[in-house]
């Protein structure tokens, strides 16, 4: 669905990405792994429009597209859930779910329509929040993670990028999130997850792409790959 071709990105003296390519398909979970500083976050920023690549191109359904800002990415059907969740703590759940994509009629907000969809969406994801109008600041960490993931679904995207979705969660919540990721795939979405946790990655992904020092360092079908081969690609050790 989205293809990244030969992307370069430099921050001052740091060469963050060097000729990186990546293909993402509908109905497939791809895990992006690599050590700290391998360029995972930079690649995600380039795809989601937070940063613009210095060189290289991004194709969407065989056409070269320009993603200059998060809005361009949204328009292409790309949604991103950041590790820091990026929620507005002073706003309620509904306002956060529809932030930047508010439904309007005659330029007035459709409060009831948005709340209806929000409740249906949260119910379909099995997320329970007692007071949907309360500021997000009063929710628990797990609830906020759920709200952040639900929010990515509101724009009916085709590609969802999840940055360390299980990093701050306990065992049971992690299992729920992994289930949720499989459900996203079964709905036909392309999913890109970034994770340090190889156990989670192997449990949920179809394909694993490895970055090392800003370059492509191998790609595996999860079913065929051994843990050793993946670790070797991440660390750069000879197999």
């Amino acid at each position: 669905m989205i293809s990244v071709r030969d992307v370069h990105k430099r921050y001052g003296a740091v060469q963050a990405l060097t000729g990186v390519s990546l293909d993402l398909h509908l109905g497939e979970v791809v895990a992006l792994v690599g050590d700290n500083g391998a360029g995972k976050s930079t690649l995600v920023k380039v795809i989601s429009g937070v940063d613009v690549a210095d060189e290289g191109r991004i194709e969407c359904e065989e056409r070269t597209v320009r993603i200059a800002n998060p809005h361009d990415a949204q328009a292409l059907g790309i949604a991103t859930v950041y590790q820091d969740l990026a929620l507005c703590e002073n706003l309620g759940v509904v306002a956060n779910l529809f932030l930047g994509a508010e439904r309007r009629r005659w330029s007035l907000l459709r409060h009831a329509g948005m709340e209806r969809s929000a409740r249906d969406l949260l119910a379909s994801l099995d997320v329970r929040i007692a007071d949907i109008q309360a500021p997000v600041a009063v929710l628990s960490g797990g609830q906020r993670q759920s709200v952040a993931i639900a929010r990515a679904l509101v724009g009916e995207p085709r590609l969802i990028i999840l940055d360390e979705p299980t990093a701050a969660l306990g065992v049971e919540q992690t299992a729920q999130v992994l289930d949720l990721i499989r459900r996203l795939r079964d709905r036909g979405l392309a999913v890109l997850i970034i994770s340090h946790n190889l156990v989670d990655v192997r449990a949920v992904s179809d394909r694993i792409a490895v970055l090392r020092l800003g370059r492509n360092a191998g790609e595996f079908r999860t079913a065929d790959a051994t843990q050793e081969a993946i670790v070797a690609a991440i660390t750069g050790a000879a197999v």
Partner: protein
Amino acid sequence: MSVVAPAPAKEVRSALAPRRSGAGMWPVVAGLAVIAVVFGSINNHFLSPENLANLALQMAATGTISLGIVMVLLLGEIDLSAGSVSGLCAVTMAVLHVRHGWDPVPAIGVALALGLAIGLLHGLMVTRIGMPSFVVTLAGLIGWQGLLLYLLGQGGTINLPFDGLLARLSDTWLPNWIGWLLAALIVGAWTAGGLISRQVRRRAGLPHHSALRLAINLATLALALGAAVMILSADRGVPLLLVIFGALVVATDLVLQHTAFGRWMYAVGGNAEAARRAGINVRRIRVIAFMAASFFAALGGMLAASRLAAVNQSSGGSDTLLMAIAAAVIGGTSLFGGRGRAYAALLGILVIQSITNGMLLLNIDSSMRYMVTGGVLAIAVAIDSLARRGNPR
């Protein structure tokens, strides 16, 4: 492809709980009641229709400036130049109108446009150069005051014609029947809005207020408006200035609560980075907020000039800015951004002007007045800080 499940699950009734957003307005309303009781019992002229009508006139100008302050405070920014800008725009209007013989309407138009341009300049300096709004508007506070003095030149005072549009603005009192009609229309509009909203929510299967709750809210509104109209009618009638100020407050609040722009104001004030990632043009929101602040300041300057029927070197000076900021904060606008309503300007200025007015009636020195106002401001900020700390993060 739809990600929305078909079956509406059992709704959680606790969604009817009131929105928790800081301390809300109740501390202010309680404070107003205390002020009314204290001053009313010491001096029986304080609650007289004549004095309350004067109070309404006195608060319109600074209250309008305070409305602009609310807009920047919502973003966690500040505008220290609002007083100077209000004076400068009033002087600009007076120079064009009186010295150059322009009609009042184009003179007012140019002055308001000047306000917008100043706000645009402030906004661009904050967003493009990255200067802290405190410094940008501090420079504005000094610089625009200087420009005011330059424009005013020798003489220092420009009197507005007493029979002119501007002077008449603050000496226009609505006939009683229009006052009552206005109150009835407002209650009617609120009733219709409440019923429609309730109906829409019910049809969508969402929790909604009971009819009783709605009726109590509307009865409270009707009582408050009715009491205001009745008291003011006993004097000279409802002052046009109060109607203008009230309409500005209500319109601003409707925009903040019911448009995407308003939602984005709160979002940028709450978490600018999250707003940016959601595709909101944060820069534009910031610039618009500064433009609104300066525009309301200019408008407040017009109202002040109208009330004085003159502009002079102290137009928009002395404690105008401080009272406008204090009013916004006392009314419940958070200095930390993201929390507050437009009604804060109305409630806050009502508190401050009541204190000022009551102390003047009691012939208390302004030294005392400043100390009391300062104390009230400190209490308001303390409540805001405690409410913020009380929010589990």
